[in-house]
């Protein structure tokens, strides 16, 4: 038996009919294509809108969270009751002349004292700090 004969012999076999249940499922054509396209695009649009909404919500949450963190930093829960800066010492390190004028380099020692109060409880915090600064100032001869 050659290939053509085999082919024609096989073709005598007809595919079995569809099961009745499947034939019943295929009894009616699908909804018109226009409706399908519309519903499809509607679904796609809904999905994209939901994605955008989710992204916006996430962005808003992050923004709020960041804003809250910033506001917490910007609004400390203490108030400064007293702050004082006292010059303890001023020591000339160098004197130099620039364009006919005299300048001196000073090393100054400051004491900074402050008192802060907690806004939520009757707690006062006193702090004292010694600071050293270098200052360049013109020399005036009175």
């Amino acid at each position, binding site marked *: *038996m050659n*290939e053509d*004969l*085999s*082919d024609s*012999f*096989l*073709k*005598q*076999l*007809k*595919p*079995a*009919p*569809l*099961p009745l*249940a*499947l*034939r019943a*499922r*295929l*009894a*009616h*054509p*699908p*909804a*018109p*294509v226009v409706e*399908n396209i519309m519903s499809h695009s509607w679904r796609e649009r809904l999905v994209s809108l939901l994605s955008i909404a989710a992204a916006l919500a996430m962005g808003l949450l992050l923004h709020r969270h960041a804003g809250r963190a910033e506001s917490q930093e910007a609004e400390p829960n203490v108030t400064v009751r007293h702050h004082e800066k006292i010059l303890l010492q001023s020591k000339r390190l160098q004197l130099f002349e620039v364009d006919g004028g005299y300048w001196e380099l000073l090393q100054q020692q400051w004491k900074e004292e402050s008192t802060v109060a907690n806004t939520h409880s009757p707690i006062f915090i006193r702090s004292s700090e010694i600071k050293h600064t270098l200052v360049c100032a013109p020399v005036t001869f009175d």
Partner: protein
Amino acid sequence: MSHKTQSTDQDPALRWQQWIDEHAEVCFLYARQQTRCEADAEDVLQEALVETWSKAQEEVPPRGLVFATIRRRAIDLGRSMDRRARRENEVSEGNNWFVSDVGASDVNDMIQVEMANLPDDLREVLILRVWGEMTFPAIAQLLAIPVATATSRYRYAVERLKPKLTELQP
């Protein structure tokens, strides 16, 4: 490949029914080869027919497109490793693939069993060629294989079936 239902003036329901009558059985035969069980084949076929019909709009979808859609959907559904074993079980359980026109009632059963024993790729080409009436270039395009491979698979399939066919030939 012949498409008798080309008129776009008919009632859509009537065109659909004619299309189903002419093509669904062959497509179901192909779907059975691509899926794990009868239920999967029915689902895949229905989805593929609806999808291709909807996409084709006013035209009757070509059979090749339906085969391609069945194949894709079957892959999506996931073909398990024991597909062949299940199919062979179903063959023995009496899910007939064919209606015999050659008189002997057991001929189709014997050929069905022989076909079930063919490797998947050979059987697929055989079905597309003999019952799907597709050309080898079309089969090659559908399966993404060279035309020569499609041709040789068909020849191998026929070679494998030839002893049984010779035996059955009156």
